[in-house]
């Protein structure tokens, strides 16, 4: 299963990569903004995307909407500090499979990935 990690923080990209590595996902790209994420999405066709919201150039919710238009089968986990209910609901309405608030633990991320992928890794 191919993974794309999108977050404007290099530390968070590395943390997500590290925490998810025991699950055997194939990391096909990382991006620091929504525009770069869409380019990688079209080129690498990831099965799973972790997507931050507050990012420069193109925010995560705008990016999510475009991802669902381009590849609606992509499983997206939104991982954001914006922990109010309406942001989470908006992400789910736009097509995200789940919403994980920051800060998160390794176990929380692994559980979320397992839930979204049905552990079919």
């Amino acid at each position, binding site marked *: 299963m191919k993974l794309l990690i999108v977050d404007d923080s290099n*530390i968070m990209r590395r943390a997500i990569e590290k925490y998810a590595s025991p699950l055997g996902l194939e990391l096909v790209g990382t991006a620091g903004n929504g525009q770069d994420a869409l380019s990688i999405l079209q080129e690498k066709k990831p099965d799973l995307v972790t997507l931050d919201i*507050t990012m420069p150039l193109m925010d995560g919710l705008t990016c999510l909407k475009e991802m669902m238009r381009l590849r609606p089968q992509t499983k997206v986990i939104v991982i954001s*500090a914006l922990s*109010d209910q309406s942001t989470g609901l908006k992400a789910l309405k736009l097509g995200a499979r789940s919403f994980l608030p920051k800060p998160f633990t390794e176990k929380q991320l692994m559980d979320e990935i397992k839930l979204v992928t049905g552990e079919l890794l």
Partner: protein
Amino acid sequence: MTEKDLSYFVNTVIQYFKQVDGEEAVMGLPYIKREDPVVLEYTGIIGISGPRRGGIYFTAGKELLVKLTQAILGESESDVETLQDMVGELTNTVAGNVRKYFGSDFMISVPMLIRGQPEDILLKLKPPVFVVPLTWKQQKAYLVVGLE
């Protein structure tokens, strides 16, 4: 900004360190910022727009950020880019997390990062500006909040 508003930020910072490392930050007594600058080596600033305009910043020294990076990545790094990224992510997370109290129209910017100790940071903050001192793993830091 009310005392209750400030308590949302304090609780959020306590929860942040607890969640990331298991060790809570010890919060000091908040005070209203006067003329003395409150700036340590690395600072992340977030602008707030919407009904509550203003800004927040989190400022910390190198040691605290190295320890925090180690808690997240399991490796201690001290290059400038990593520590700037760390303080920006922390500030972004605190500002984003308080939306569960202030609502989704509490709009936050991407973090602006400052290294070094400028004379002071006044940009975006709306008086009265509250300073919340904190200590984590024997290292000092400050959360500074100024909202309408």
